[in-house]
């Protein structure tokens, strides 16, 4: 299938008495075109789930499939190629390289994947343009505001033909209006056929997702059902 599939995924750290069960028998599917939010308290396994879904870490048991390919059956090189080509990451600390301009930061994964310098730059500029950042393309990260840096990080995550978008608290310390702008971009990227996962403890951000999954002690304990639509808000019993 297109998208991400986790089957019976468990992850433990340590051994014997000091063993920590970060994930316990997690099975879930995120379809292409769907944005899913993972919510849970600190230590519930949210970030571990994201790194395993993004093949940055291997599960202790279980199977991860990305766009029909079994990740655990891949060699290290194949996994690295998958990460470069198919998966975009947005982390809270952004990881933008300070010595590169916005355009160079966005072009970097394309160049690493063998694309020519000029074409990589053209594609990067186009991605920045979609984020309303074309005019800032030649600025360095420290010449950009927090919201602008966030948009560069997202442009880098979605540039090229990515199939999967993974974000860990992607709005960081942004104010609510800038945070909303970031979530609009992520949702719009997913509607173009990308499978997206956002990890957050913030219900307002999570509410931008098509589906919200709740983790507790490493297990999926609940999930929202697709909204009954806006009409449900207008009836008196639709109100809390």
């Amino acid at each position, binding site marked *: 299938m297109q998208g991400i599939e986790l089957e019976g995924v468990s992850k433990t750290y340590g051994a014997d008495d000091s063993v920590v069960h970060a994930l316990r028998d997690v099975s879930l599917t995120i379809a292409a075109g769907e944005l899913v939010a993972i*919510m849970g*308290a600190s230590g519930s396994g949210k970030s571990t789930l994201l790194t395993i879904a993004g093949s940055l870490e291997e599960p202790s048991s279980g199977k991860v499939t990305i766009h029909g390919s079994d990740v655990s059956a891949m060699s290290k090189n194949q996994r690295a190629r998958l990460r470069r080509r198919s998966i975009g990451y947005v982390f809270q600390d952004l990881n933008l390289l300070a010595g590169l301009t916005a355009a160079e930061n966005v072009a970097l994964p394309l160049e690493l994947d063998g694309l020519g310098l000029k074409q990589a730059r053209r594609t990067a500029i186009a991605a920045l343009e979609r984020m309303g950042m074309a005019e800032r393309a030649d600025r360095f990260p420290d010449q950009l505001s927090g919201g602008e840096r966030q948009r560069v990080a997202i442009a880098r995550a979605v540039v090229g033909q990515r199939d999967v978008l993974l974000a860990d608290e992607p709005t960081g310390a942004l104010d*609510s209006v800038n945070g*909303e702008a970031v979530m*609009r971009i992520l*949702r719009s990227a997913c509607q173009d056929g990308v499978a997206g996962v956002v990890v957050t*403890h*913030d*219900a*307002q951000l*999570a*509410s*931008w*997702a098509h589906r*919200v999954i*709740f983790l*507790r002690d490493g297990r999926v*304990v*609940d*999930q*929202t*059902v697709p*909204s*009954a*639509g*806006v009409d*449900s*808000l*207008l009836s008196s019993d*639709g109100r*809390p």
Partner: protein
Amino acid sequence: MSVRHALLALLTEGPKIGLRLREEFEQQTGDVWPLNVGQVYTTLQRLERDGLIETNGDDVGQMKDFRITDEGRLEVDTWLHTPPSVIPPRDELVIKVLVALGVPGVDVPAVLQSHRRRLVELMQAYTALKEEAVNDMRVALVVDAELFRLDALIRWLDSADARVRASANAPRNDTSTEASVVTRRTIRVVT
């Protein structure tokens, strides 16, 4: 939501009939708070009784034009600058969770989660409303108000969850008496 003051404020733009007031109220609140005709006319009658609006004696029925008086304008200005009541209403959610704590055999974290899920579902529906109205500031303002309110409830549920978990893991000791006194005091405030 003060329908009375919102209708009065709409009349500061000029005389209007009841049906138009209803339509404008719903538009300005992003169609999130529907209003029935009866509610509009009852409110207008009370505003007229209080001297805040007036009508021509000749007009009848639904085509009657309502005009704001000077006293009405003063009332709108005072209302806009007056902070809402700070006394919190009794919160049904808080009461349910407190009751759940005392009912034997109830899985309190499961109770908290069922409320959390429903609130997040409501937030998703509100956010979808905001997404559809990208450039409508009024809708965004109304929806944001609901989202922040729901978010606060979810934060409270998260905090309650952490407290319930800490309490379940904590060994019983001499502070339990002190804790129950604090709980009783809290319950009195809430109810």
